[in-house]
């Protein structure tokens, strides 16, 4: 049972990490969602194998810990809110840059850095000229 949960959480995390590394921003968000599911699954697995489901009327014998399931619910809610926020940000970026491919955004960034370098260069040159 433990091994099944561990393998499931690990493969979810791996799939999420793979998606995170892709170029498309929506895939990146999906990667975040999958990683959040890995965390939720680990949270549930941390106490699920201790007995039966903690539903009233309680079964005779050991029951599993309901606290970890309460925590999992909280984590799911937080994960949903954060995912919504991320999707809004992706929408904003898509509108601002007219692209949702990461390498195109990086190109734009590099171009801006280049402009910034040029801004400083003339002032130094003119200083050297006046010094001469």
């Amino acid at each position, binding site marked *: 049972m433990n091994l099944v949960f561990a393998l499931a959480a690990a493969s979810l995390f791996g799939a999420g990490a793979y998606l*995170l590394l892709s170029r498309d*921003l929506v895939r*990146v*968000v999906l990667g*975040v969602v999958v*990683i*959040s599911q*890995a*965390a*939720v699954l*680990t*949270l549930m*697995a*941390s*106490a699920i194998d201790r007995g039966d489901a903690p539903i009233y009327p309680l079964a005779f014998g050991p029951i599993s810990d309901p*606290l*970890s399931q309460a*925590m999992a619910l*909280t*984590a799911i809610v*937080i*994960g949903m*809110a*954060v995912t919504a*926020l*991320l999707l809004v*940000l*992706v929408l*904003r*970026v898509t509108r*601002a*840059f007219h692209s949702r491919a990461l390498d195109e*955004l990086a190109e734009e*960034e590099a171009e*801006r850095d280049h402009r*910034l*370098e040029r801004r*400083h260069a003339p*002032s*130094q040159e003119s*200083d050297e000229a006046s010094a001469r």
Partner: protein
Amino acid sequence: MTELAVALLVPWAAGAILVALDGRRRIVGWLAVAALLGTIASLVAVAVSAPPAGALTFTTGGWPEGVGITFRADAFGLLFGLLSVGTLTAATVHEVLDGVREREFPGVVVLLAAGLTGVFLTADLFNFYVFFELALAAAYVLSVYGRTPRAIGAGLVFTAVNVVGTFVFLLSVASVYRVTGTLDMAEIGTRMARADPNAAILIAVGFFVAFGVKLGLFPFHFWLPTVYTGSRPAVAAILSGSLANIGAYGILRFGAELLPRELALASGALVVIGGASVVYGGVLAVSRRTASEMLAYSAIGQVGYVLMAIGIGGPAGFAAAILYTVINALNKTMLFLTTRIRGTLVGAVFVVGALSVAGVPPAAGFVGKLELFQAVHHEPALVVLLVVGAILSLVYAFQIYQYDHWLLGRGDEPSRWQARVVPFALAGVVLAAGLWPEPLAAFSQAAADVLAPR
């Protein structure tokens, strides 16, 4: 006990109301400042009423201890709470004086304060995660403040990286519950000593990665320059001056209180990572040409010192780490706020910050560096590293001074007095803390005593 509940409720309730109002109106901005000042006042009330060497605890809903969610205010948590809400207030006053540009800014700032006070005062591991997410969600919204394409791009990077960081944190929380069966942070410390060392090391690594991402340490720093240079000065000041404190707090609290054995085991690695941060941040900051880029890389270097002090450990190391975090937060808030202002004496304010970063008296940074030297004096290699780091910071800070205030500064229009008053006040605080460091040093020593009793 009531003071503690008030300190948590004030920013929470005020923030929930303020997000609904139009923050561009001046009155709403000042209401947010009032709420932040109210939070500081209630934190001071908690600090006054707490027993000198102990902690004030409070269990929600009147449940017996061990069942309800516990809050615990000790000197360590209170120092970080006061520092973070204090720098947050300074940045908010600056932005309100200068004119708020987005309607959600004041409310979100107050909600960030709610998350931060919760993080620093909770004694429950899962509650820590919830408050951590609350503070971060507020920070995600703040990171796109200004809505320029650059700010939005930076906000996306910041959000994506930190969301993954918090899920790594959650994975470690789940593992802690699995291993110890409790969420009470004091109880975890005692039960962790009996846990399987392999599991404990994995948990400790998860926490370290989560807080390292938050702090912007060397291997986890990749998001930091984009975000700090892309966002507005007030937001960069908030992110580096108050939000990043969670990282230092987390490594100290989780390392020294929850996983002391693993912290001792990793001390060599922490010193190496800290040293790498110092050198990497310093060297890259020297190569930068704009103030905000220089400050972003300098932030990476400065947290390296904190990590080195934590790695050395013991009462002296923890006290140095805490004091250095406090001073670094003040420096960064002040310097980020000066990046876009020009005019009489702005250069002087920048010089005070630069001296403080490099650790030259009479600025407060000297006291921090002194404590660091005291903690590492028996390790010659680390002393050399500290000196090299200090020289690098002098070079990069005065290089930017030269670009911004000598070469380019002359022709620029001086900024309005509204934009200048808060950096001036912060420079006064940094100088005062450097000239009379006794209260700050005593407070950080008391905070370190919580973690490692002498």
